């Protein structure tokens, strides 16, 4: 009996919706694809043009100071980065780093204000929370399809997919951080006659800073996890050798590229963690 019901043309709807979006907003998508894509390649090339040894030293110095003048993270960074260089993956590393950096920055720029909005409005929270759940549980691959439709292939659709996939933790943690500020502090801010903006910038955001940074850390990690997936749509970087090794069933190169991603992940994670732990 169930078989008698006609199939709902859900996929057709989504298809036509996507193509409608693509054609209607091509005047937005196209310039973004071109200008933004150029900008990203330019950034990656610029980074790649700096002598590797200088980048390695800078990272080591940054790691040293940010981890409270302990040597461990610096040593790890030096050895790890040298290994990647030695394996001939340096320019891939720069592309991946650019992708992660820019998509994380965008996630933060978009995510923090949305989080603030959610914390201020019960209605906004009720609407946005399920959307966030949806964004995070949908398999990340699925985002690649509209990304390609809108932005063709390359870094830009990678950033787009990463934005959708990686922004939710920043939004959630911003909302949480602000809602967690104790009532007494909020009352203190109010009782002394703060405006809404003063209350937000002088009390709530500073109090929520640690929580928000924890969310940003997660966002960065998720962005990094998109790297391999994004290489499926032609984004350059460390994901590419992984993908091609997979297609040719070559364990060696796949492992080398994989370990490079892990090294990058550890360095970024420890550095961002230390940012939010330091007061």
């Amino acid at each position: 009996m169930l078989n008698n019901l006609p199939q709902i043309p859900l996929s057709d709807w989504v298809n036509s919706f996507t193509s409608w979006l693509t054609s209607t907003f091509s005047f937005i998508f196209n310039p973004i694809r071109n200008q933004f894509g150029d900008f990203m390649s330019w950034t990656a090339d610029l980074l790649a043009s700096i002598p590797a040894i200088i980048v390695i030293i800078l990272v080591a110095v940054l790691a040293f100071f940010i981890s409270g003048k302990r040597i461990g993270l610096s040593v790890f960074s030096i050895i790890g980065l040298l290994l990647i260089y030695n394996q001939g993956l340096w320019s891939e590393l720069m592309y991946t780093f650019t992708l992660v950096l820019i998509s994380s920055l965008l996630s933060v720029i978009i995510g923090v204000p949305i989080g603030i909005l959610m914390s201020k409005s019960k209605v906004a929270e009720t609407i946005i929370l399920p959307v966030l759940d949806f964004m995070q549980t949908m398999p990340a691959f699925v985002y690649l399809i509209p990304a390609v439709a809108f932005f063709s292939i390359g870094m830009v659709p990678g950033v787009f997919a990463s934005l959708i996939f990686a922004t939710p933790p920043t939004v959630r943690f911003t909302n949480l951080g602000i809602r967690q500020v104790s009532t007494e502090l909020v009352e203190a801010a109010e009782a002394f006659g703060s405006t809404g903006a003063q209350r937000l910038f002088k009390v709530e955001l500073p109090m929520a800073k640690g929580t928000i940074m924890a969310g940003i850390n997660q966002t960065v990690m998720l962005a990094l996890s998109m790297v391999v997936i994004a290489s499926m749509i032609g984004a350059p970087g460390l994901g590419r050798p992984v993908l091609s090794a997979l297609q040719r069933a070559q364990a060696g190169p796949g492992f080398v590229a994989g370990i490079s991603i892990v090294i990058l992940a550890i360095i970024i994670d420890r550095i961002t963690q230390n940012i939010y732990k330091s007061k």
Partner: protein
Amino acid sequence: MPVIEVKNLSKVFGKNTKQSLKLLDDGKTKDEILKQTGDTVGVNRASFEVEAGEIFVIMGLSGSGKSTLIRLINRLIEPTEGSVMIDGENLATMNKENLRRVRREKLSMVFQKFGLFPFRTILENAEYGLEVQGMPKAERAEKAKKALELVGLGDYIQQYPDQLSGGMQQRVGLARALANDPEVLLMDEAFSALDPLIRKDMQDELLELQQSMKKTIIFITHDLDEALRIGDRIALMKDGSIVQIGTPEDILVNPANDYVERFVEDVDRSKVLTAENIMRRPETINIEKHGPRVALERMREEGLSSIYVTDNKRNLKGYVTADDASIARKKEIRDIKEILKTDVPTVERDKPMNEIIEIIYDSPVPIAVVEEGKLVGIIIRGSVLAALAGESEVRLNAE
């Protein structure tokens, strides 16, 4: 003229506030209204006036609506009904902008758990109220420093709150409230989180500050001892209503109803303690040796306004007042007998304290404790209240 006039101020938490207010009119209790409408009555038709320079204490058991009431006064909680007049303006109905102005200029609040900003230094905390007004950095730092010096924290301005003890943190809270020189201080259980000794220090300090700065203070506590110590007047709350307002003596001597009586019941020391438990060593002069000059000198040394007079065998003869003595000195009267007053209120050693309260209430001078006509001690009003409040100075085993 009163600084603050609260009239019929009510707060009902919930969705059916109109209906609940009507039920309150019908004299329904807080519990009945909760059952019928699901609303919680926070404050029910509170009315009172607070005079300039007064310490007005609001006291009541947990859940009686004290915190709600004080937050209605600066409108951290929106009133459901009623008015709060301050300098002729109704705070309950004014717009956001005016409300901010009043909060900045006239009302400051001190919080139970201090409410300090942990990421700001002590100085920056004390500056907060001035900072939001847009005062330039140098000017507000100076004012904040003055306020911090006033509470004895001048040396700690660069520390962070978590580096300070609880008592010191609450001093910062007090300094922050004083920095913008408000007319009224609102203090919600400001000393409840402190341990008893520090707490007493803070009470003393607050009294001193109030003496010198003449602030009007609304102080909340659930602690009768604290209320008796610092209150000029005390309002007692129950289930959101104010059940009695009066001086500490009023509350102790004429409890308005059973509830008040029960609240002050653990002050039943009044029936246990007797005169000898609370009397002090008397300052006296000798009628056979001393004249008005000596009397005046002694009173000045001890800070008294009257002094008892005995003979060589410590038999009580009467007392002289400072006023009389100084007139006598001017007129060069030598004999103390000419200004001696004999309408002395006296009690025996074993007089229970609840009876002493009634005597001392009308008496302009300390009560004399006598044994077979000899003066053995005096009782001042302060030590009666202190004893009722259960202070350690009371000697249960008088020698």
